[in-house]
């Protein structure tokens, strides 16, 4: 007790210090769920309830016959937290399969973004040129605005947004990440 009390004197607390932080990494999880009412709230509620963060979330029904939805979640955490997240997701009753794409090999990741640029005159050509460099499509054009559509990895979308900012970027809409593993592997197998 005596050795402890000297070190504790500093903090003036007999309670334990909070645990040290370990480096965090981002993982992309693919989660197959029954498309029943409240299933998304269940997943999102689990994340917020246990203090985990969601960086990106995409959800849509992917199997209309069996009413299964695929949820793609990008989340950040220490390796232990990521393991907890997967185990906790797996035990939710409507969750059928959980697949950690980041861990399970190579995968394709895509996100779609719509960027609205407001600019006129000479600046329009500059905006168009940079959009072309990112292979973005022009989906709307008025004398004083553009909407560009880009599909790429989340990181490339970040870059695209950064480069478009000086051209008069006023509005962005992103879909969140959709991802699928490469080769013949199927989710959860």
């Amino acid at each position: 007790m005596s050795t402890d009390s000297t070190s504790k004197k500093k903090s003036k607390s007999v309670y334990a210090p909070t645990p040290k932080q370990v480096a965090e990494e981002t993982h992309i999880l693919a989660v197959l769920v029954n498309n029943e009412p409240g299933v998304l709230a269940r997943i999102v509620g689990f994340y917020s309830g246990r203090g985990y963060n969601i960086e990106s979330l995409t959800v849509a029904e992917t199997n209309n016959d069996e009413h299964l939805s695929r949820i793609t979640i990008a989340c950040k955490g220490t390796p232990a937290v990521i393991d907890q997240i997967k185990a906790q997701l797996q035990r939710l009753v409507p969750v059928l399969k959980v697949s950690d794409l980041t861990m399970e090999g190579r995968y394709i990741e895509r996100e779609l973004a719509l960027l609205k640029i407001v600019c006129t005159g000479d600046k329009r050509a500059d905006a168009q040129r940079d959009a072309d460099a990112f292979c973005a499509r022009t989906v709307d054009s008025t004398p004083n605005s553009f909407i560009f559509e880009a599909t790429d990895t989340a990181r490339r979308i970040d870059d695209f947004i950064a480069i478009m900012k000086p051209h008069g970027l006023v509005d962005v809409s992103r879909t969140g990440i959709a991802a699928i593993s490469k080769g013949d592997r199927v989710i959860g197998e």
Partner: protein
Amino acid sequence: MEATQKQDKATPKPKAKTKEMSGAEMVIEALIEQGVDTIFGYPGGAVLPIYDALFQQDKIKHVLVRQEGGALHAAEGYARSTGKVGCALVTSGPGATNAVTGLADALLDSIPLVCITGQVPTFLIGTDAFQEADTIGITRPCTKHNFLVKDQNDLASAMHESFHIARSGRPGPVVIDIPKDIQFAQGTYVSKDEAIMHSHYKPETDPDMKAIEEAVELMANAKCPVFYTGGGIINAGEEASTLLRELVRETGFPITSTLMGLGCYPAKDKQWLGMLGMHGTFEANWAMHDCDVMICIGARFDDRVTGMTSKFSPDSKKIHVDIDASSINKNINIDIPIVADAKKTMEAMLSVWRAKKYKADQKALKSWWDRIEIWRAKNCLAYKKDDTIIKPQYALERLAHYMEQDKRDCYVTTEVGQHQMWAAQFLPFNEPNRFMTSGGLGTMGYGLPAAVGVQMAHPDAFVVDVAGEASIQMNIQELATAIQYRLPVKVFILNNEWMGMVRQWQELLHGERYSETYSEALPDFVKLVEAYGGVGLRATCVDELDGVIEEMMSNDRLTVVDVMVAKTENCFPMIPSGKAHNEMILSPDASAFDKSLV
């Protein structure tokens, strides 16, 4: 099937298994089919049709509690003492919100419950209707699963699915929210064999044999092994406790258990080290700290068990058997995880142990036991006896003495606080399903309604709620329930006029500033229970204690015993928050505890 005869008269003869009936009748039919004989509840507007259907049958006994919170704890008590799914029925809005504490309690302690909540009619949902609450939203994080039934033809399947989910895998509470118009509407009932399970919920329960062989080999080569068991063994059924006893005896290893697991292994056995954790025994905690192989079965390395995780059992290889994969590596890193049912795992472990003719290293085991005996000799539960003032520990020792002599089956429930820990330390638990206490959530007010549930399930048993004067007041209205159903529940109040456990923390960790923990304006518990129609007894000094306990044990009525105990007694041993197992303080050390470190 008789339950629906009234219905049959009015409508054409139903086909063999699928039958037309109202939603409310389906609820009753499904409960009967699921083997429910007792349901705890409180009526209200949104469950009137179900109460109407209850009135017209005689298979299910309804126990009217005095507040919905009591219904949930009573159902928990019923479930924990029988191993069956507990059942509660409450109305919408405040009925459902009052049920929330019991649901959260059952979730943390893995107790199988099905709670039926009424809901406003579907066409009023979302309009802020009278007694409307978003029950599904509110209960989502404190249930294992929940359903809102919007079509009467889905109701029977949802009922059956609720029971399936509540009892499968890691058990837990399930809420089924039924709008009033669905209760009235006619629909088709399906039996449990035909129910459409939407969830595909099938948790893995078979152990991986490779992991079992690896684990058993590790056990066979252990020098300082210890079994650390928990409530998972109780949830795995009575047979699991039998298998645990075989496994412990054949290996010769010492065994400790969490609060939730008390009774799985007989406390009178010499291999039993007592409970571990914050208020566990010296020998159990030191064995955990110094062991080289830890075999954890059905426990979850809760913070009250581990103390500071970075100093938790630093030199051991850890085997963790849990039915819930998310328990593995959650708090403590595990060397050999086995995600499976405890009973099946122990069966497999025993068969491998026997097939390979393993035998523990007797020499190493002997010296390990020698060390344990030195720790045991500390006699860590010792306390200063007094000739006149009743020490709470002494009161429980006397209660234990009388319980051991009693021929009846004895069941103990507790509230939460010092008395709960003393009950765990001093009462004898030799069989599973005999100790009902709020472990994970720590719900004051749990014990009395839980005792009501236990006594309903075991009418001839001796059922006692060990309580504190603060906790008991949190659900004291359930005395009326006990009276109504003539339940001879006993409430044994260790009355020290303080919220003892909080007071203890304030004394040891908060500079002796006793903020709001004195129980001012206490009622006279003797008169109080008499007003309800029960028996009130009081013991104020040591000489009165035995007589009062004898009278409590011998009468067959609801009895509250107000035991006036020493006011500032602390519960030891204790691992202060943030300390390791080998830094626990014992009663004599307490005076040396530096109270200035705040």
